[in-house]
């Protein structure tokens, strides 16, 4: 059964994905790992791109993520409504070595539920999983790991295990709020592609549209019909036609 039938190109859709989470939890690093399969140890706070794009190939369709970084505007809680606008997916990131970052993540989830489109797919991601010892990651599913996760002051006996948020704690919160949940390491690449694939799979087909659109709401055709294309013929020649 070789490629006999004329293969139709898979439908491709753009999806706006926004990143949220406390500063320094590794939001940009996750994206760099996903987009460039790259990791920089002591990365500066985010500067430089309004958004990055990366494709995610599913069996029946291709999702092209437009990944919007906070550009640091989360630091003083100064994200603009346009950031959430038409986002079809959100990655809410915390640091598994820092319990306060999960609290912050919960705040962002609430903010998304308030500000974003109702159908938005939210993934809660515990990053820096590489800092948990292998044993710690296993035992975090056990009840006895939980107490260590609840308080930052707790003396750590394993020495190398910096984990302070039990997988179970975050997972049960994610389940309550119907969020996708993963623990990742941008450093090793662990689970990074899986997060994006899971998000791509979770986005309902009905909310998708063609490439380079905004989508995410109802009445898509009409919205496209109303849109004026500024980059079209008229304005590509800046000085043409102005009689002034």
């Amino acid at each position, binding site marked *: 059964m070789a490629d006999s039938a004329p293969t139709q190109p898979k439908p491709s859709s753009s999806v706006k994905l926004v990143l949220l989470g406390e500063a320094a939890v590794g939001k940009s690093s996750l994206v760099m790992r996903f987009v460039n399969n790259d990791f920089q140890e002591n990365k500066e706070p985010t500067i430089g791109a309004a958004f990055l794009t990366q494709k995610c190939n599913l069996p029946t369709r291709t999702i092209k993520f437009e990944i919007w970084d906070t550009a640091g505007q989360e630091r003083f809680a100064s994200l603009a*409504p346009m950031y959430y606008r038409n986002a079809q997916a959100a990655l809410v990131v915390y640091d598994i070595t820092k319990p306060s970052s999960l609290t912050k993540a919960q705040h962002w989830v609430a903010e998304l539920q308030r500000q974003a489109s109702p159908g938005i797919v939210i993934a809660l991601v515990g990053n820096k999983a590489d800092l948990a010892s292998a044993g710690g990651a296993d035992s975090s599913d056990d009840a006895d790991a939980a107490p260590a996760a609840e308080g930052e002051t707790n003396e750590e006996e394993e020495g190398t295990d910096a984990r302070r948020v039990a997988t179970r704690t975050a997972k049960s919160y994610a389940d309550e709020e119907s969020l996708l949940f993963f623990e990742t390491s941008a450093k090793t690449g662990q689970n990074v592609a899986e997060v994006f694939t899971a998000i791509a799979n979770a986005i309902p087909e009905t909310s998708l549209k063609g490439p380079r659109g905004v989508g995410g709401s109802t009445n898509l055709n009409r919205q496209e019909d*109303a849109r004026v294309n500024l980059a079209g013929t008229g304005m590509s020649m*800046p000085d043409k036609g102005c*009689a002034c």
Partner: protein
Amino acid sequence: MDTLDNSEWDVVIVGTGLRQSLLALALSRSDKKILHIDENDYYGGAEAAFSLQEAEEWAKSVDESSTAAAFFNTSVTKPDLSPDSSTPQLSPSRKYSLALSPQLVYARSALIQSLISSKVYRQLEFLAVGSWWVYTTSSGNQALREPISIHQTDSIRGSLLKVPSGREDVFQDQVLDFKSKRALMKFLRFISDYEEQPQEWKKYEYEPFTTFLIERFKVPEVLHAPLLALTLTSASSDQVSTMTALPRIARHLRSIGVFGSGFGSVIPRWGGMAEIAQVGCRACAVGGGVYVLGKGIAGEGKYSEFDGKLRLKDGENITTKWCVRDHAPSGIPAASDNRSVTIVSSDLAPLFPSLGEEAPIPACAIINFPSGSIPVEGWDQERAVPSVQIAIHSSDTGECPPGQSILYGYVALSGAQGSQLLKKAVESLLASVDITPAPTILWSLQYEQRCIPVNGSGSLHMTWGEGMLTFKQSQFDLAFDDRILDEVKEIWQKIMGEDAGDFLVFEDREPDIDDDD
């Protein structure tokens, strides 16, 4: 860093209104260390957009005591809506994004060029401004075309007449007589390059535009109102000079067809200029600028003694080479305009006729109420009553849910008379549209906005000690005024000095954006 105390900056921009945000955009690739703050907890300043709840909070928070505040006399009116499910209801607060600055932008505006050359247009959506209508009650004005309803007997009900959108419209017109058409065509030919023919209009420069139309082109009176509507001025008809009207009408006509047939101006989606302000701020943040809302400057009076040190309202001391902020309080009482925002229970579809097969669906209609078309009780001034402008935004703007629309009203008249005039205009408009069920008002906001005259004296900005730059406060205008961009450029140039380069011209930051496969 979660405190700003003792931080050092190259530029501190105060306020996130349109000007400041365009400046932030202009500086976004400059490598300057930028702190952009706003004492409000929302973006956009005088150009913000609000949910219903935010709009009501804003109306309450407006400082009535300060004569320097941009807004005053705010009031929110919510008619008693019966909870009966058959009557139209307001939707939840967040379904609305009401614009304090519902401006339209002409296709030939330098703003469009700048949004394109700086690449931020990719994060914006623009919608077409469709038809322009003139409201009329009089029996004498029947010679115009396409009345969508006529109720001549009732004083409050008039008819809305569509303004021809270009020469083709005029040619195809069935109602205008040949003589009027010829006069109008002659005028339209003239205005296409009026700058080249000063001999035609210089001596009428300060004369009323209507006098010029009659004496120079024999344009009949019936066509004065539609032509004045294109100027988007709210002054009384006898106060609009030839000098004011010509460039505005030319701007309108020259923009038609640039982005598609049948329209010449656009509006940003999602709440007017607020969206452009946010996009500018984001661009600056992406370039490394630091953003803090809910943070103002302490000590409002210190304009004249700026020494590089600023104290923020929570007590942080910071230093900066440059500080850019709003106009300095002058102490001179400024004139004010009345403005209103009205949510209506109908899409008012008859006012949004198709612009043609290839053209986008229009999302905005402009209604002009000429001088005197709405009576004002106790009007005792010599000049005519100012005209009223209403911009209707459809739900395609994202400013309201489907099945509703937003009416943004504006009149250059202060006080109770202005507010009364606006209310009557909205009522008359709704009564004049033949649509079932009859549209009702679900919610409305009225306020006054202070302004300084557009032709006011003084330079665009003033320097208060080394490093302190201020924007001018300007009059609200229904169309974006390119002078705002000049003002931003001037300040940008001052900050950048020799290294300025091209204003608002950037490369794409995103490499593969057009990769479509």
